């Protein structure tokens, strides 16, 4: 909302030398956020009113003229101009060098310089209204029309800001910061707040009184939705422009002046925040009735939209049918037209929620509806009426009030609240005297009675539509008027009930740090919605997956039941820049099943779990290495993050996995995840070109943190141990698991064998087909003595012999 300071000053005497920065700061701290304070005149720097003395043709251009312009101080300047309405004697807006304009009202601002136009020196320019930001205030009727200021009786050389009454300050207020304060939606409301903040007197708007007697009446058939309706029937009006001062203020507040009848209604709304409306009285048949629309009833709006109404809509009707959508927009039938001579002024109060529903239903939010939906108090109709009538009578001296009806169905009850002063002090953390508290509240229009510890507060009508309803609201009023900055921070006291030990939270953090820091993987975030392409490629089935009813895009409807589709998408996106990387994500997944009611029996929430997913992508490593890298990350995770160990099994191939390279992850008898190589077909569908991708996904909710660190201590070997590598040929399908078992299983191949570990395996030219070479590192040692090389070799030979026997292995001959 934009406010004009000079308009606010109509209602409160802000000293001329007031520090506006401080005013904006104080309003921001205590009331509403002032986003910007603009010295409006700055927009018109280096602009003045010039008088065209003489118009001469341009020697080199048919469309241009060279104007001799009196710019005051006895100076006549040549200005080249292409305006089509130039006349000698005309007053025009001249932008002198240094002024900032926009060519044809569009594009970036440009600083005017002395320049030559087609060979003729031009001192600045003669402006069209939109070139100096005044297109809405002085709309041009045709292209290349110069702003004609002849109606402004000022001498040549008057600064444009002075001539057009632009020496003003505009306050831009963040609408969001006052959604709860319907009283502030107008200049008067802000003036009232400023008066309270600085203890200045606020001007009253004198009520309108009339003794007109007639049978004019307004009927309210929907008292639930219309608490008050004032109708004033007037004759002696006409459609003409409103006075410049009114147009100027309407423009400053961000609206467009139209004609005097419409401008008065808008002006009053901008002044006191209560929308009003003027109907052409000659088009109202019989009298006005406010009622619910009947189902299917039609209404053609001012903007030519035809609505089919429902009975939740409120309409203003005459005996023929609806003439306006109450509180939202007038109808076409009774709108002000050039020949309007009699009007009915509507000053009404409508119920907020209903207006909001209707405005949303027809996607027609207007200045009026956005004010009504904040809940305006019906008392404000008095101000709106008084101000409207003031201007009607001022603008139309011939005006006659021919009918008047104030149908006030339900008087507003002012909010009454009892506040314990001890409670107030406790919550404020500060002692304020009774007089201080009373002073702060009374300035805001509250009535205060203090009796011992009890303070009885009556809120003013303009704060009684929901804004102030409980004692906490009263506390807030006292605190904000005292100034939040004036309260010191008070430390809170601690009560120790034991150390915080959240093993589950710690485990997830340990895992993430393990993956990132120890395993060198990068954490990524992706959205909860999945792209259909990746759902189809990776999950291949949408059963049990939840959908959004209004997704960010049609193809992003499914929300994730697995982290893998989005990880594949991330891999595909990064392929352009990286050929070897690993990423992981920890996030929530959702399932359309197992609905439960943990917190409230009437609520039923779907199954939601937290998963950890990872992708290892490389075009430079072979699949063997990539597989072992991914598996290594999983194998060592329980140990490094202190959780119960899980194991790998091969029970059920994940749909996205290669036929051979995959494993299931089991904790006890429960499957908690999968790992595997992404099948070629799947990665092609994901748009992954050259990368091989290993994935894993674990259900983090199933992981079990250990109660404490477990680690076994073994004594350091007393006698030296020796690593001894052997390479043997095995059948190509021999599993390491079996080889290890043969060597280190129940019956160890040699009593001196401490350990056996996998070094690598090789298949290639030198290896007969159907075979592979496996290099095994044996750790050989004794607890009793240092072994001789013969003893070590004997132990190794025992191992080899056992492998030959059990696994059909042969020693690899070079």
């Amino acid at each position, binding site marked *: 909302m934009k406010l004009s300071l000079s308009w606010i000053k109509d209602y409160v005497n802000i000293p001329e030398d007031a520090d506006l920065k401080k005013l904006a700061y104080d309003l921001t701290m205590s009331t509403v956020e002032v986003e910007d304070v603009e010295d409006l005149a700055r927009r018109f720097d280096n602009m003045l009113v010039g008088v065209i003395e003489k118009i001469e043709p341009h020697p080199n251009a048919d469309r241009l003229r060279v104007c001799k312009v009196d710019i005051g101080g006895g100076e006549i300047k040549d200005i080249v101009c292409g305006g089509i309405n130039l006349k000698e004697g005309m007053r025009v807006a001249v932008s002198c060098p240094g002024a900032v304009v926009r060519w044809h009202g569009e594009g970036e601002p440009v600083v005017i310089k002395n320049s030559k136009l087609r060979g003729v020196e031009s001192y600045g320019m003669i402006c069209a209204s939109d070139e100096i930001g005044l297109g809405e205030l002085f709309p041009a009727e045709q292209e290349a029309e110069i702003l004609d200021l002849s109606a402004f009786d000022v001498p040549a050389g008057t600064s444009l800001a002075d001539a057009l009454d632009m020496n003003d300050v505009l306050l831009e207020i963040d609408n969001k910061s006052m959604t709860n304060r319907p009283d502030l939606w107008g200049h008067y409301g802000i003036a009232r707040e400023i008066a309270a903040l600085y203890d200045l007197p606020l001007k009253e708007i004198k009520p309108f009184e009339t003794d007109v007697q007639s049978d004019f009446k307004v009927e309210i058939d929907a008292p639930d939705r219309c608490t008050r309706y004032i109708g004033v029937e007037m004759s002696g009006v006409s459609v003409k422009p409103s006075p410049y001062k009114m147009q100027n203020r309407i423009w400053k507040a961000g609206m467009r002046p139209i004609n005097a009848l419409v401008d008065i209604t808008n002006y009053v709304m901008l002044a006191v925040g209560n929308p009003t409306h003027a109907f052409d009285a000659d088009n109202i048949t019989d009298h006005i009735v406010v009622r619910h629309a009947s189902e299917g009833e039609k209404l053609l709006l001012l903007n030519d939209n035809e609505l089919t109404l429902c009975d939740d809509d409120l309409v203003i009707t005459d005996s023929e049918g609806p003439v306006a959508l109450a509180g939202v927009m007038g109808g076409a039938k009774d709108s002000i037209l050039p020949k309007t001579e009699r009007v009915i002024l509507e000053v009404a109060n409508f119920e907020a929620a209903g207006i909001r529903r209707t405005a949303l239903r027809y996607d027609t939010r207007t200045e009026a509806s956005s004010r009504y939906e904040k809940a305006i108090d019906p008392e404000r109709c008095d101000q709106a009426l008084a101000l409207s009538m003031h201007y009607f009578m001022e603008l139309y001296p011939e005006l006659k009030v021919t009918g008047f009806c104030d149908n006030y169905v339900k008087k507003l009850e002012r909010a009454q609240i009892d506040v314990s002063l001890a409670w107030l002090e406790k919550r404020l953390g500060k002692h304020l005297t009774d007089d201080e508290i009373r002073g702060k509240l009374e300035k805001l229009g509250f009535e205060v009675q203090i009796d011992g510890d009890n303070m009885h507060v009556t809120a003013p009508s303009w704060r009684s539509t929901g804004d102030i309803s409980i004692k906490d609201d009263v506390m807030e009023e006292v605190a*904000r008027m005292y100034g939040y900055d004036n309260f010191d921070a008070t430390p809170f006291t601690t009560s120790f009930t034991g150390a915080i030990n*959240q093993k589950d939270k710690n485990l997830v953090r340990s895992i993430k740090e393990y993956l990132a820091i120890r395993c060198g993987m*990068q954490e990524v975030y992706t959205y909860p919605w999945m792209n259909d392409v990746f759902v189809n490629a990776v999950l291949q089935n949408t059963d049990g997956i*939840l959908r959004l009813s209004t997704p960010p895009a049609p193809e992003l409807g499914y929300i994730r039941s697995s982290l893998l589709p989005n990880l594949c998408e991330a891999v595909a996106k990064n392929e352009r820049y990286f050929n070897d990387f690993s990423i992981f994500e920890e996030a929530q997944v959702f399932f359309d099943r197992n609905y439960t009611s943990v917190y409230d029996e009437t*609520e039923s929430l*779907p199954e939601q779990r937290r998963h950890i997913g990872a992708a290892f992508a490389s075009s430079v490593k072979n699949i063997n290495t990539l597989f072992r890298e991914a598996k290594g990350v999983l194998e060592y995770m329980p140990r490094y993050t202190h959780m119960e160990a899980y194991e790998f099994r091969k029970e059920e191939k994940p749909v996205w996995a290669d036929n051979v390279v995959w494993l299931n992850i089991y904790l006890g008898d429960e499957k908690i995840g999968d790992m595997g190589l992404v099948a070629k077909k799947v990665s092609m569908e994901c748009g992954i070109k050259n990368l091989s991708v290993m994935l894993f996904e674990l259900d983090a909710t199933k992981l079990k943190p250990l109660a404490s660190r477990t680690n076994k201590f073994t004594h350091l070997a007393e006698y030296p141990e020796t690593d001894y590598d052997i390479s043997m040929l095995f059948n190509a399908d021999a599993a390491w698991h079996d080889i290890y078992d043969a060597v280190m299983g129940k019956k160890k191949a040699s009593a001196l064998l401490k350990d056996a570990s996998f070094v690598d395996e090789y298949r290639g030219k030198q290896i007969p087909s159907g075979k592979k070479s496996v290099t095994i590192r044996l750790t050989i040692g004794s607890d009793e003595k240092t072994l001789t090389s013969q003893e070590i070799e004997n132990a190794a030979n025992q191992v080899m012999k056992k492998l030959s026997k059990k696994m059909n292995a042969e020693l690899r001959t070079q």
Partner: protein
Amino acid sequence: MKDKINSILSEAKNKISESASEGELQNVKSAYIGKQGSLSLLMKEIPTLDVSLRPEMGKLLNQAKNEVKELIDEKRVELKLKASEVSPDFDCSVPGIMPSGGGLHPITQMCYDLNDAFRSMGFEIFEEDEITSEMYAFDKLNFPPNHPARESMDTYWLEGHDSGSTNEKLCLRPHLTGGSVRYMQTHKPPYRFVYPGRVYRNETTDSHHERAFFQYEALIVDKDITFTSGKVMIQSILSKVFGRHVPVRMRSGFFPFVEPGFEIDMECQVCGGKGCSVCKHVGWIEVMPGGSPHPNVLRAAGLDPDEYTGFYVNIGLDRLVMMRYGVDDVRLFHSADLRFLKQFR
């Protein structure tokens, strides 16, 4: 001859001590005790001496040779210890080899930093599920039934669960505060917890607006809390994030679930409060809403608002990370773009 030996010896000693490299030392060695060295040559003169002098001179000469040899050996060790193992043109300006690369998401990092700070003040960490009912997203937080945030244009409702009464309508949580009510329902006061999590708004995105973003809620509820205690919480957050004291101000703000409510601003860290384009020339940047939980919210959580009160803040982590590092596009956080993420290690 004795004098000759002594003069050669002292000459040799000088040469040895002057030697700056092993090569020079080698030259000294051959010049004095090598086959053609001056001391070796003197040896050949012994037989020409008077017999009575021979044993003494021979002894002197041998002593001299040994002394030279010992000094050379000593010097050699000394030179060895002084010298480098590599050639003097070794380039120390070549970059180091990066340790294996990986990292936490910058928002996770920020979240963990804050968790550590709050844990040290005795706060628990709380997490909740992301799908919630309208009842917990709005009703229990004192949002009026017709509040704009409830409309589909602001909230992601789930298909098949997007109509009916508020306990039946399900959505991706639009904020964390509903989850705080769940915590309060299931725990006994006093409360002191933080609640990090991702929330969702159905919005048009641009460099400063996202559909998914992170909030960090901190809530304290006890019998004797004034809203001024909240300032301690706010300062803890900001000093942890920025590593120094950051001036903050609390100003009037309205949110349905708090009373009184505040907008909390911090001094603009770009201009130090002087005013710049980042802070729209006001010197302050809005960082979080806060306030005392509204009595209706406490009631919804099963507490007596006459007995209990508290303070709540809810900080946008994305925004804080953006300010900490100067990131200018919020959409990068969910881009999974490694070129971006690799910068935060």
